[in-house]
């Protein structure tokens, strides 16, 4: 009886812990993500500076930030391809500078990053400029062997500039 209950506890724990590492970034997720990004940009035309995927829930939830063409920053939440919350963040960002430096679309750089860590969970993207002013997209992955990995892809060339991975346990 005790053995059975221990097994039940272990099974319950494993089902709650494992999905954090098991949600592989699939083409379906990619499509859902792109739908959300397009919907968000229709709401506020601008440049997406970051997004985060929460795939632990049954419905795919995406949180994203858009720097609009009037330099305002909008934080949005997308569920099932629809924007469910939309609020302004404090401060402004330079839309002209951010948008003019991107030469390669984010969808292309995303593919390059995913190819670096195939079959892993893609959790977030951040678009930023280096201290020298070079634009790059940073993607964060959770690998199957419990490493958090980041991939920096140049927004000018579309090539991977650097990667880093480290165990999280």
């Amino acid at each position, binding site marked *: 009886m005790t053995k059975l209950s221990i097994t039940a506890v272990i099974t319950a724990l494993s089902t709650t812990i494992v999905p954090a590492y098991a949600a592989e970034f699939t083409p379906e997720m990619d499509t859902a993500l792109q739908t959300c990004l397009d919907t968000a940009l229709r709401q506020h035309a601008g440049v997406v500076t970051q997004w985060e995927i929460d795939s632990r829930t049954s419905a795919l939830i995406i949180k994203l930030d858009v720097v609009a063409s009037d330099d305002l920053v909008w934080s949005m939440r997308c569920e099932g391809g629809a924007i469910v919350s939309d609020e302004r963040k404090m401060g402004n960002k330079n839309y002209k500078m951010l948008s003019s430096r991107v030469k390669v679309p984010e969808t292309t750089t995303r593919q390059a990053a995913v190819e670096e860590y195939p079959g892993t969970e893609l959790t977030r993207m951040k678009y930023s400029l280096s201290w020298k002013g070079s634009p790059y997209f940073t993607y964060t992955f959770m690998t199957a062997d419990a490493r958090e990995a980041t991939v920096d892809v140049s927004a000018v060339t579309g*090539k*991977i500039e*650097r990667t880093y991975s*480290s165990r999280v346990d």
Partner: protein
Amino acid sequence: MRIEAVRLPLITRTASLVMVLLASPVLASDNTEGLDDCLASARELHEGLPVRWEVENGSGHGFEIEVVAIDGRVWKSQCLPASGKASVVGRGIGIQDYATMSARAKVAEQDARNTVRTYFPGRFIEMVFDLTWRGGAIYTYTVITPDDRETSVEVDAASGRILRSRSKAID
């Protein structure tokens, strides 16, 4: 008929040559071929633990291997992949703790190398086995990826798992 008989093997030979030339980058991708024989040969010269190896860097001397012998001395040797025979080139400075190092290397270096090859395919440059300040044993590999990034991969010598990796595009 006679001409055909002469031409056919020529075409076949040309096709084979083209096939070999096309396949050569794939064949050359494993630049650690012969390393295991060389490591075994280096250990025959001085029984101990290989703590560092470096692949041929254009010098024509083949692999450079460092072995910590049972008495703690560090021996450097070179080995040509074709021959698989290592020859000692000298002694390294200082003494290392062979007993601790060998006891902590639970996973064979070859297995760690295969793990790295799976996750980071490319050209191996070197391997260094060392202990961290906390006493953990680590194999650190340097690999050049096909898109010209220098990658450093650390593998836990106790579990065989990748601990961390870093890569940077070569300018």
